[in-house]
């Protein structure tokens, strides 16, 4: 065994020493594989970052209630009476001021993006007073909270970064009214930081919504009371609603987009991988062809066929791994933490998020490179091992 390994090692090291003579082809195939790794990491880090942005702050003790049959807040509709009954259900946390329930409505407005100057969608959410207590992690990082009953808004930090006009003190013309930006906030879970908030009671008349809402956000006494809460809603014949934990709701809302981004990423990476595979095959086939006589000589001297195969696989793997690591590293330095905004396809609104290059992504890129390397080396290696020795010796 040690014997065999030393044969593999020797042949592999002879092979690797010939790389400088073939650096053009070797470099081309390594770059191809680096490209695959970079694209894969790039796209998946978008999906990953997006998912993280959406899910990170989703809580298990916050429930979101929509009209049953609605997939998202946009298509949902609830009356004030329904909102009140939801607040009275079992499991809802209470303070002296009443249940921690916020009936909310939600419109889409257009604001110019800082990056391009073109208009893009921003969610404009009307909330009730308990909204911040329900989310728990809302922080006003600049300015102050809006005052109930006034045309004042606070902007999520992500929205303030991505869109112009959301500086504190600025006045926005939205619909038929002027709104003053009085604060910037962070937290809130999921895409909240990409939203603009105001008092629901002010937003309703501004958008002629009467006394209707789209969702009810509820703070539960604990994560465990969610079941009691949903049972209570189900057992109320006057309510036709469904409740989801915030974390599940956010994951659900983002799955279409993350799946879409991942799909594109895998598709492009797979196409590129196919190209890179042919590049690797070509490089290794010509490497084997160029070394036919050397391989035959080694075989004639008594080196085995399997060390020849393995050594060629090793060479191809080293090439592929070098490419994969360089590509993944390049993607990491280029993309990790890179701030971006993308459109949320369910709410058609801008979501601010950071590309997240996770260790798993780097590993999966390197795994792809490994597979390309193995496949790219396998067939040439088998060909090399099958070359008849006597004929190979005369090859020039």
């Amino acid at each position: 065994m040690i014997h065999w390994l030393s044969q593999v090692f020797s042949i592999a090291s002879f092979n690797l020493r010939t790389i400088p003579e073939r650096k053009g082809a070797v470099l081309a195939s390594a770059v191809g594989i680096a490209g695959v790794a970079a694209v894969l990491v790039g796209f998946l880090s978008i999906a990953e970052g997006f998912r993280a942005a959406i899910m990170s702050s989703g809580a298990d003790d916050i429930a979101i209630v929509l009209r049953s049959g609605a997939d998202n807040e946009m298509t949902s509709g609830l009356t004030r009476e329904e909102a009140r009954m939801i607040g009275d259900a079992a499991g809802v946390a209470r303070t002296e001021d009443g249940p921690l329930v916020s009936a909310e409505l939600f419109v889409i407005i257009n604001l110019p993006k800082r990056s391009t100057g073109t208009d893009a969608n921003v969610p404009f959410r009307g909330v009730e007073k308990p909204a911040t207590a329900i989310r728990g992690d809302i922080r006003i990082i600049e300015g102050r909270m809006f005052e109930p009953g006034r045309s004042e808004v606070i902007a999520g930090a992500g929205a303030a970064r991505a869109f112009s006009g959301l500086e504190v003190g600025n006045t926005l013309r939205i619909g038929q009214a002027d709104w003053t930006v009085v604060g910037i906030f962070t937290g809130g879970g999921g895409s909240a930081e990409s939203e603009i908030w105001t008092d629901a009671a002010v937003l309703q008349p501004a958008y002629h919504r009467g006394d209707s809402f789209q969702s009810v956000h509820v703070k539960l006494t604990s994560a465990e009371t969610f079941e009691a809460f949903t049972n209570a809603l189900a057992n109320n014949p006057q309510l036709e609603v469904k409740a989801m934990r915030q974390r599940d709701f956010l994951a659900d809302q983002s799955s279409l987009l993350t799946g879409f981004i991942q799909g594109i990423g895998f598709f492009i990476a797979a196409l590129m991988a196919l190209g890179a595979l042919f590049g690797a095959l070509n490089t290794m086939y010509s490497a084997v062809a160029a070394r036919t006589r050397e391989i035959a000589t080694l075989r004639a001297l008594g080196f085995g066929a399997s060390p020849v195969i393995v050594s060629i696989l090793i060479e191809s793997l080293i090439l592929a791994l070098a490419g994969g690591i360089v590509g993944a590293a390049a993607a990491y330095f280029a993309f990790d933490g890179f701030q971006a905004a993308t459109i949320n396809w369910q709410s058609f609104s801008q979501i601010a998020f950071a590309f997240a290059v996770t260790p798993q992504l780097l590993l999966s890129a390197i795994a792809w490179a490994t597979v390309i390397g193995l496949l790219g080396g396998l067939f040439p290696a088998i060909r090399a091992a099958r070359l008849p020795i006597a004929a190979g010796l005369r090859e020039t």
Partner: protein
Amino acid sequence: MTANNGTLVRVQGVDKIFRRGSEEIHVLKGLNLEVPKGEFLALMGPSGSGKSTLLNLIGGLDRPTRGVVEIGGERIDQMSDRELAAWRSRHVGLVFQFYNLLPVLNAHRNVELPLLLTHLTKAERSKHVDTALKVVGLSHRARHYPRTLSGGEQQRVGIARAIVTDPTLLLCDEPTGDLDRKSGDEVLSLLQALSREHGKTIIMVTHDPHASARATRTLHLDKGQLTDEPVK
């Protein structure tokens, strides 16, 4: 390798047929050959007569279509590829027309190659390599790479590589075919010395009467068989 009654190589009733598509090339036909231990045998014959083919069969690089190839009492025609590879590394030294050195390795490393298949330590291998290079008179070229050596020197490195494992049998396929007269003579003298002073059994394929004159016996390959007479 112990040989009965001094015969090292016994080839008996060997046929070799190559198939190229539907075409069959009957290269060797019922060929017989016995080579006693210590002989320096020259094999001659027209191009395409099958000299290399025969040498490959004796060296275990290929198998006969029919017949017996017995070296030192071992039936190498019946060995598996794996067994043959191990057998070659222990019992034959091969010398090629175009030297077949690995360009990425210096002379020392090239000569060391066959020893990588043994259990010798690095120090032991080095000692054997030094000895082999000394025999071929190239100790001073040990660190040189093949491309910096003359053809004659490269062939002497090739011979050092062939003898470094101390095989009984040396097989040389046109060892001087690519060399000028002077270098060729040096190589031939070296082979002659190996035969005379080190008791090596040598089979050398050559086109050159000058080369075969150095051998102790010359055989001619014609129509798939060996004869003592030159082919007209």
